[in-house]
């Protein structure tokens, strides 16, 4: 069940995209999501689409991966697109039945929203597939640093983030293990009506919480024993290096914005 989820996974590799500084990738991805809303005609979407495909190609990752990233969200996307298609008014009306109508604007909006969804998912999948989670949390810590004077606990946030990321696979394994143990004791997960299904989750949730408490307790003790006293005065082991290619990426996105401004309506 969880194995199907591609979004949020890291795939080791050695492409140009893999070697980029995580800060550059993170900023670029968010920036891309922002400028995708600038696109408002067919040409601008085609242009962004071509650019995205180019980025995916640079990563040397099999395209099937990105398609699989879209798959779990396909119903959400289709639902949103359907809402747009059937409830937008304006332009030429092709078909009408009660509140439902098929209009020129509706079809156009539906298509654009579909493109937006797919492109955003492609780009964020690209980010997570090419960046190790820890590098991401380092990048987030760095990018949050300006907020420190505003009393935002940047170090704590990034510590929690990196611990959380580190324990995602461990907790998944644990979940799987406990599920199996309870299935061996005759629990049917995902069968019966809604109430039965929810009841079946209790023998899974309670042990998971208990083991998380124990794990947190052990981890805190182990950290204290190794001299952890908080963020002040700590040095860094993993240091991020900004290089020319990262600057080029940022410049590319500036050019991208300029071109986009030109071809949009």
């Amino acid at each position, binding site marked *: 069940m969880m*194995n199907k989820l591609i979004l949020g996974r890291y*795939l080791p590799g050695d492409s140009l995209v893999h070697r980029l500084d995580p800060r550059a990738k993170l900023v670029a991805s968010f920036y891309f999501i922002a400028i995708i809303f600038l696109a408002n005609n067919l040409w601008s979407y085609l242009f962004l689409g071509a650019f995205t495909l180019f980025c995916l190609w640079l990563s040397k990752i*099999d395209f099937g*991966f990105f398609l699989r990233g879209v798959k779990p969200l396909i119903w959400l996307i289709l639902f949103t697109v359907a809402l747009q298609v059937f409830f937008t008014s304006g332009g030429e009306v092709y078909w009408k039945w009660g509140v439902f109508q098929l209009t020129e604007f509706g079809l156009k909006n539906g298509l654009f929203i579909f493109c937006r969804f797919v492109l955003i998912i492609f780009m964020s999948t690209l980010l997570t597939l090419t960046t190790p989670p820890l590098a991401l949390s380092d990048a987030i810590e760095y990018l949050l640093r300006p907020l420190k004077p505003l009393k935002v606990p940047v170090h704590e946030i990034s510590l929690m983030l990196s611990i959380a990321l580190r324990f995602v696979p461990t907790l998944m394994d*644990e979940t799987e*293990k*406990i599920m*199996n*143990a*309870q*299935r*061996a*004791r*005759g*629990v*049917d997960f995902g*069968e019966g009506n809604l109430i039965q299904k929810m009841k079946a989750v*209790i*023998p899974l949730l*309670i*042990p998971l919480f*208990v*083991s998380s408490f124990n794990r947190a307790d052990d981890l805190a003790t182990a950290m204290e024993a190794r001299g952890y006293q908080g963020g002040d005065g700590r040095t860094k082991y993993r240091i991020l290096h900004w290089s020319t290619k990262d600057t080029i990426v940022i410049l590319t996105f500036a050019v991208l914005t300029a071109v986009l401004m030109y071809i949009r309506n």
Partner: protein
Amino acid sequence: MDIRFEKVSFTYQPNSPFEQRVLHDIDLVVKEGCYTALVGHTGSGKSTLVQHLNALLKPTAGKVQIGERTITPETNNKNLKPIRQKVGIVFQFPESQLFEETVARDIAFGPQNFGVPEEEAKVLAAKTLKMVGLDESYLERSPFDLSGGQMRRVAIAGVLAMEPEVLVLDEPTAGLDPQGRKEMMEMFARLHKENNITIVLVTHLMDDVADYADFVYVLEKGTVVKQGTPRDVFQEVEWLQAKQLGVPTATAFAQKLVDKGFTFNQLPLTSTELAEMLVELGGFAHDE
């Protein structure tokens, strides 16, 4: 009830880049009433194999015959409960599966899932708790207040309470103190003898295999590389040591004596056997 593996292969996450083939063409039989041991390195596929014994996993190729039922890759996930009742599995560190408010309710949880009425399940809980060596005063306590060893016992009782015909034990004594380990292993041996329960033991401890098992399967990289009675398997000390699997302490010691010039008709498996053989040799067999 026999459990029979025919050409069983298993792959995790098939047809994905994370694909991992864990079992290759395994043929294996767990005979009714037989104390079967599975040994092998970490990552040799033991735990994956164990999950096939009660259809938690279905083979990606081949078939598993569990009593009357045949599990093939096409088998539907419904109606597997009767199998799970007959084949009870105690997973590694089973204490992590406890969740109820009281020990009694946790032990009764399994039987109740299989349709045993509450009153009867409570009686069963009291009975099995005694079997694992805890007295009745524990019945109304919270499982989370117990020590690690006691939690382990309660968890095992939870599986025993389902009264399985086959009991699968995945490293049941890992992390227990020597006393607890011995008590637990003796208890399983008693269940095997007195209640005629078939036992499948997964372990790294060759001494336990020598002491209790009737038959051993040695797994490596997802295939069965050796099988036989412990007596046959453990004669090949060098082969086992080359595979970094080790042999029982008594056998290893006897092998050292052989290296120094002693001769045995057959290498001993247990320390009692070793002592008897040494007495027989009279200490004068040294041929230098």
